[in-house]
């Protein structure tokens, strides 16, 4: 736990202070680390409590307060701008995360990114005994559904005879769609984005297979009640 380089990142992540690269790395790590998810859950309610506060409460306590700044227009404008910025940022990046982190089925953590809501990676289920793990995230697009896949060998797992894997989708219409293939090496994580010309509701399931082999991991797209068209 103490060796986990991500273990101290939950707070700055929650406050939206991580830069994009580090945030993405942290989110990928979250999908695979129960300890970090639990750490994030511990403090996930805090930012909403800070949301309504005046900035003065972040200053030094009264007995150590510095000489008050004259209430001229500029300091007031700066303070208002700072409050507005913090509020706006919190509204766009915070609330979605907070709601999800609170719900803390501990699997689903939704973090909006700069380009719209970022889907939560969800674990694929093992269909057979396999050393392979994967998470998948689906994002609705105007052209269909974008699919982010992360795949890796479990630590210490014996490498199977073939290192080649494929992602296939089965449509509700009965058709099969090849979404890509890759080679996997121990200790390496592959991350790739694929796409399919179906809406999420039209995808029956997603599976990882070995060439000419059975499906080893599966992901049944949950049948949430959703608006019929988008």
């Amino acid at each position: 736990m103490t060796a986990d380089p991500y273990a101290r990142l939950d707070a700055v992540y929650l406050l939206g202070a991580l830069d994009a690269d580090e945030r993405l790395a942290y989110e990928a790590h979250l999908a695979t680390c129960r300890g970090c998810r639990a750490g994030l859950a511990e403090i996930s309610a805090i930012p909403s409590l800070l949301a309504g506060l005046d900035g003065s409460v972040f200053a030094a306590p009264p007995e150590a307060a510095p000489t008050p700044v004259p209430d001229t227009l500029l300091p007031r404008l700066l303070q208002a701008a700072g409050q507005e910025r913090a509020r706006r940022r919190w509204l766009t990046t915070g609330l979605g995360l907070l709601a999800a982190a609170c719900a803390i089925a501990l699997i689903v953590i939704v973090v909006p990114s700069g380009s719209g809501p970022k889907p939560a990676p969800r674990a694929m289920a093992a269909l057979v005994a396999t050393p392979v793990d994967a998470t998948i995230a689906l994002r609705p697009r105007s052209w269909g559904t974008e699919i982010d896949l992360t795949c890796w060998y479990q630590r210490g797992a014996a490498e199977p005879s073939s290192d080649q894997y494929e992602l296939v989708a089965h449509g509700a219409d009965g058709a099969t769609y090849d979404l890509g293939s890759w080679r996997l090496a121990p200790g390496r994580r592959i991350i790739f984005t694929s796409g399919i010309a179906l809406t999420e509701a039209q995808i029956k399931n997603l599976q990882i297979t070995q060439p000419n082999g059975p499906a080893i991991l599966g992901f049944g797209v949950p049948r949430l009640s959703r608006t019929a068209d988008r």
Partner: protein
Amino acid sequence: MTSHLVAAALGRMAHEHRDVLRECYFRGSSVGQAAHALGIAPGTVKSRTYYALRALRLAIEELRDVE
């Protein structure tokens, strides 16, 4: 949860902890910006914020128990 209780909890915190919350939350700074503003290392911003949110949570719980 009343905001005066949260404000009181903040008032109880070490100023190092309040400083990182002011930078990273209220001012909307990144870790790098906060580190620059406070004159500390980025890693210190991360760990202080980590402890700050936990200290704040504890302080709020204690105050709530009193009320």
